[in-house]
């Protein structure tokens, strides 16, 4: 391989740098914007002064705080329900042979195929009719529905990797099927559970279409939707700095999530196989 020669090493480094720059420049730019004072926002410099004004403005804004709480709550609940349901469904489809299994799997795939924009209009009407409009469940339900197929497919791939014998060993050891599932299968599929959880959480956290359409007040509006309604510290200012600060703030939970779970995923993958 060319990496062994000095020339190859340099090329390799350049490649890595290009990718890192490509990925990080927008993030760095919005971070730098968030630290600028209002009069420096338009100066097109990467670094000009350092001020926490924007963050103070963002956190003194009740709308943003409410949105942050909505986002965290809705995303966590949607993730939890979705993963529990997906784990049960994935277990059933990967371990049992029953009539209609193929229908369930293709049905799940079909759900994932609908673009959210195509159903959001009718959901708006339905939710208003049955009183789910502008509530947490009103967002949790579509998030859960749209992420279930992905979670089911991810989890069943992990479940299939776990040898049947482990479960049978647990049964012989005196476990009920549910105990075997909870104490053996789920812990072993933990990397899969966390992978699926991250994907579901990110979907729910980042969604804009549903959040924007199905909410109207602080009662359920999540951060992505709230950002669109941002006005800044006063109505005479461009809210760019504040939007940038809010964007940085909403990115942080995702980064934390990924870092925590990534460690778990790697730990799970290296915990070792069953056979030698």
């Amino acid at each position, binding site marked *: 391989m060319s990496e062994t020669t000095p020339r190859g090493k340099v090329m390799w480094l350049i490649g890595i740098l290009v990718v890192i720059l490509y990925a990080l420049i927008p993030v760095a730019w919005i971070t730098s914007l968030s630290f600028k004072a209002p009069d420096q926002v338009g100066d097109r410099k990467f670094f000009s002064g350092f001020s926490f004004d924007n963050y103070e403005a963002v956190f003194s804004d009740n709308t943003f705080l409410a949105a942050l709480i909505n986002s965290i709550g809705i995303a966590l609940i949607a993730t939890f329900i979705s993963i529990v349901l997906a784990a049960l469904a994935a277990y059933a489809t990967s371990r049992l042979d029953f009539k209609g299994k193929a229908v369930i799997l293709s049905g799940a795939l079909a759900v994932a195929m609908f673009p959210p924009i195509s159903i959001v209009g009718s959901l708006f009407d339905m939710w208003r009719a049955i009183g789910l409009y502008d509530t947490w469940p009103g967002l949790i339900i579509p998030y859960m529905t749209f992420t279930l197929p992905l979670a089911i497919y991810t989890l069943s791939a992990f479940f299939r990797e776990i*040898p049947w*014998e*482990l479960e*049978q*060993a*647990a*049964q*012989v*050891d*005196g*476990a*009920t099927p549910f*105990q075997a599932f909870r*104490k*053996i299968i789920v*812990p*072993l599929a*933990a990397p899969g559970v966390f992978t699926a959880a991250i994907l579901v959480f990110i979907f729910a956290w980042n969604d804009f279409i549903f959040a924007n359409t199905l909410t109207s007040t602080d009662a359920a509006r999540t951060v992505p939707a709230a950002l669109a309604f941002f006005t800044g510290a006063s109505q005479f200012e461009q809210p760019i700095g504040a939007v940038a600060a809010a964007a940085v703030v909403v990115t942080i939970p995702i980064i934390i999530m990924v870092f925590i779970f990534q460690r778990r995923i790697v730990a799970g993958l290296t*915990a*070792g*196989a*069953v*056979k*030698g």
Partner: protein
Amino acid sequence: MAQITLDNITKRYPDGFEAVKDMSLEIEDGEFVILVGPSGCGKSTALRMIAGLEDITDGELRIGDNVVNDKAPKDRDIAMVFQNYALYPHMTVRDNMGFALKLRGTDKGEIDEKVGEAARILDLEQHLDRKPANLSGGQRQRVAMGRAIVRDPSVFLMDEPLSNLDAKLRVQMRTEVSRIQQRLGTTTVYVTHDQTEAMTLGDRVAVMRSGQLQQVGSPMDLYNEPVNLFVAGFIGSPAMNFMPATVEGDHVKLPIGDVKLPQDVRERVGRAEGKQLIAGVRPEAFEAAALTGEAHDRGMAFNAHIDVVESMGSELYAHFSVDSDQSIESAELRELAEDAGGGEVPSAGEEGRIVARLDPASEVTEGQDAELWVDATRLILFDPEDGRNLTTSQQGPAATGGQGTSGREPEAANRQDDAETMTGTDGGDQPGATGATRM
């Protein structure tokens, strides 16, 4: 402690395939029974039905006095050792072994005590806090055993527990399994495809073929009095030699010459006179003619051109071929030939190739003619059509339940002696003999 009764057990899959056909077997309390047979013979399915991991299509299964056909594995008071051990990779050795007790709600102190005791028996004490991934194959195997022991179940089920180990470790663990079983005295059903394991471990061995029980008996019974061609060819290493034979008067005509039959055998095979039969001769029924001494009159001397001589130190294996215008045809032998390939059995049932086990004092050399002798009393004749043993006084395939298991201890000691003489070819078997005295 419990006996197990299989009463006309059948396993039929939805596609109509019968993995186990009408199997009846009685396993006494504390007995060590081996189910042996080539792959696909239904032995694992039978074991899994006892475990409750496989539904029973027909028949009745009793453990102790209870019919357990419809009971879940957890309600059968059994412990199973799986072929790939099925250790829980996310738990430490301690937790693996204590899992069943924890599920049962045993208190912490008692679990620790029992796990500690099992670990002592199995020499696992310093590994208790490690994960299975960090253990060697033999250690994992012992953990799997430990998981079964800790529970103190009424029945141990073992599904080829040693087949994932390398040859040396397998011999070592074989002794270990035997020692543990004798120490605990727990009823054990052990599945293997390795006839050496079957011969050395079991109180009784049940040979299976295509879902049917062929013969159940002590290892020596199976070796000396196989009911049919299949059992004869399956048990023993090197395998029994087969050649075409015809009975004429009080003689049997073999490719190596005419052998005079002993009187009792002569009476039993009388009806088959003139018919083409298959003769089976164990390798040790041959000897160099010069060394036979008094026994000489029991058999027949003949000349053979020796192709290969394998010297084992304690004995010689002389390979030679016989020519015959007849050929032997039997479904059972074909099946055996297909199954051989494990490498442990030299020229298993290969047509026209004969292996003789000779005394090292016999002077045979490769490529030379030698005068050999065959013991007529050890000659077994089979009917090629149904594979039945015509020479034996025993009856055909019948699962006669556990006779003679009362005097367990002395019997176990005998068993080890038998095993040693039988598999004396295998130097690694020596620990097997000491294992019996160590308990």
